[in-house]
């Protein structure tokens, strides 16, 4: 008998699924997938103790369980509420939930600078997706938005506190993934901010993962800063033999240049194989990696734009017709065009490009 586990039957948006006891509503909904899964800004499956902060995953529990079918009086955070047998949950079928979620998004955006045109996270930002789905076009906030100075946390990570939504994911990551945590949330309420005490830099082997877990553009990769937009890059699955980590990463390529290295994320944007700083920041050459193939990107994501899948190239007959002679090219685009100059290797710059990089045309001399 002890081998046989009793499964809990739970109904989410009229879809019934059987899950193990101890599963959260969010995880049960993710098993169903699609629109039923509530969005989550702070909950992160691999991080213990995460969740319950952002309130975007609120759902309505119409019946608590078979034993006690009374509805829960308030909306509950689905990431922190476990399922009960016979529970009936309403997510997108509940008007109350949609309304509450719109309110939550409005609150999250109150102090957000909305500088998406500048932000490197644009295109893969969860807050951006969330506000597209639930946000209003305008804001009702009339006061000055909370602002902070940009901070360099070590040579590789840049902190834009203005964009932060205080999800605590980076704090948990530093606690659980790296050996020593040097940053946390200082101050309270409106003043609270992610910071290191007296401008420490964050340096331990796995601290780069805070960039991946950040749902917004608050923690960004300085080695990638302003180099390109994510939707112009080609994500490739690659691995290398790394003594510190699994070495399984996604390379973000433009041509043969590796612009950025990130950990592989699943469909919920969660990382399971943490990668070390060496893989992330220092291996920016294609020859360091064994490329497995292009990463599968959701067709509806902006990142998949311009990636033409299944195209058939017509057979090049010009050389055949001209008896093996190659056609004479009338114009080399690099003689006219000033962008994508072959001698400017943006991926080799340690930080963002400056005007001088493009003026001198040889950044290595500097």
């Amino acid at each position, binding site marked *: 008998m002890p081998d046989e586990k009793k499964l809990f039957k739970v109904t989410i948006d009229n879809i019934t699924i059987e899950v193990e006891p101890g599963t959260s509503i969010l995880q049960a909904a993710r098993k169903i997938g699609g629109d039923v899964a509530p969005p989550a800004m702070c909950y992160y499956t691999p991080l213990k103790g995460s969740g319950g902060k952002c309130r975007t995953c609120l759902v309505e529990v119409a019946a608590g369980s078979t034993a006690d079918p009374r509805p829960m009086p308030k909306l509950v955070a689905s990431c922190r509420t476990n399922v009960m047998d016979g529970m009936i949950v309403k997510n997108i079928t509940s008007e109350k939930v949609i309304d509450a979620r719109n309110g939550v998004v409005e609150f999250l955006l109150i102090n957000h600078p909305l500088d998406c045109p500048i932000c490197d996270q644009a295109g893969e930002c969860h807050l951006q997706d969330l506000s597209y789905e639930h946000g209003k076009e305008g804001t009702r906030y009339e006061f000055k938005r909370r602002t902070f100075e940009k901070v360099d946390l070590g040579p590789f990570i840049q902190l834009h506190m203005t964009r932060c939504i205080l999800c605590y994911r980076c704090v948990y990551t530093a606690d659980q993934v790296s050996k020593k945590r040097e940053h946390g949330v200082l101050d309270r309420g409106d003043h609270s901010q992610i910071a290191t005490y007296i401008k420490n830099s964050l340096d331990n082997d796995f601290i780069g993962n805070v960039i991946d877990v950040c749902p917004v553009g608050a923690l960004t990769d300085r080695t990638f*800063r302003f180099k390109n937009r994510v939707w*112009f890059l080609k994500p490739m699955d690659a691995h290398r033999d790394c003594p510190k980590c699994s070495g399984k990463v996604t390379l973000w390529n433009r041509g043969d240049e590796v612009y950025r290295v990130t950990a592989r994320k699943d469909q919920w944007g969660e990382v399971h194989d943490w990668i070390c700083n060496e893989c992330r920041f220092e291996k920016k050459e294609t020859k360091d990696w064994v490329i497995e193939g292009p990463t599968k990107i959701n067709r509806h994501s902006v990142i998949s734009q311009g990636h033409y899948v299944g195209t058939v190239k017509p057979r090049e007959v010009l050389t055949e017709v001209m008896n093996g002679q190659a056609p004479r090219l009338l114009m080399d685009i690099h003689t006219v065009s000033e962008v994508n100059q072959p001698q400017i290797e*943006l991926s080799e710059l340690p930080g963002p*490009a400056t005007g001088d990089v493009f003026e001198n045309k040889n950044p290595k001399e500097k």
Partner: protein
Amino acid sequence: MQHLTNRAKPVDRKPMTALEKLYLWNIAKGMWITLKHIFKRKATINFPEQRREFSPVFRGLQVLNRDAEGRENCTACGLCAVACPAEAITMEAAERQPGEEHLYREEKYAAKYEINMLRCIFCGLCEEACPKDAVYLSETFAPSNYQRKGFIYGKEDLLIPHPKLEPEAYQQALGTRAKRQEKASSN
């Protein structure tokens, strides 16, 4: 056979009479039509001297806008390039350095910005996509050129004249856009 319109007429194939063979009446009829057109309003204009007014929705050569203080609006966000169906726009971004605040409006700017006018189809989607009011289609067209390399427009070709240093050229480049915007804001 089913006719496409109800105005179709069968062709008259009767042999012409002697009077008809002279063609005199038909020539006179044709000349009368020609004569009438002399007194009508001309459909053409003498182009280089006279120019037609552009329609308010005309989409011409792209312009990179500056704000009132002459700083470049573009932040190289890449939305115009991603919206471009012809993939004509390319750019490279750089970070604004201390001391460059009078040149660029935001901390990131387009160090290089290029539009390939051979590819551009003047659809105006770049203008629609731009979140910073930085690119818009003006009331001029791309001049013709004998060589392909004359159609790669860089930033120096696209940037609007400085509003403070060259106010007249700036107003001219704005075209009727400024007036239209004023009208729209007053309504």
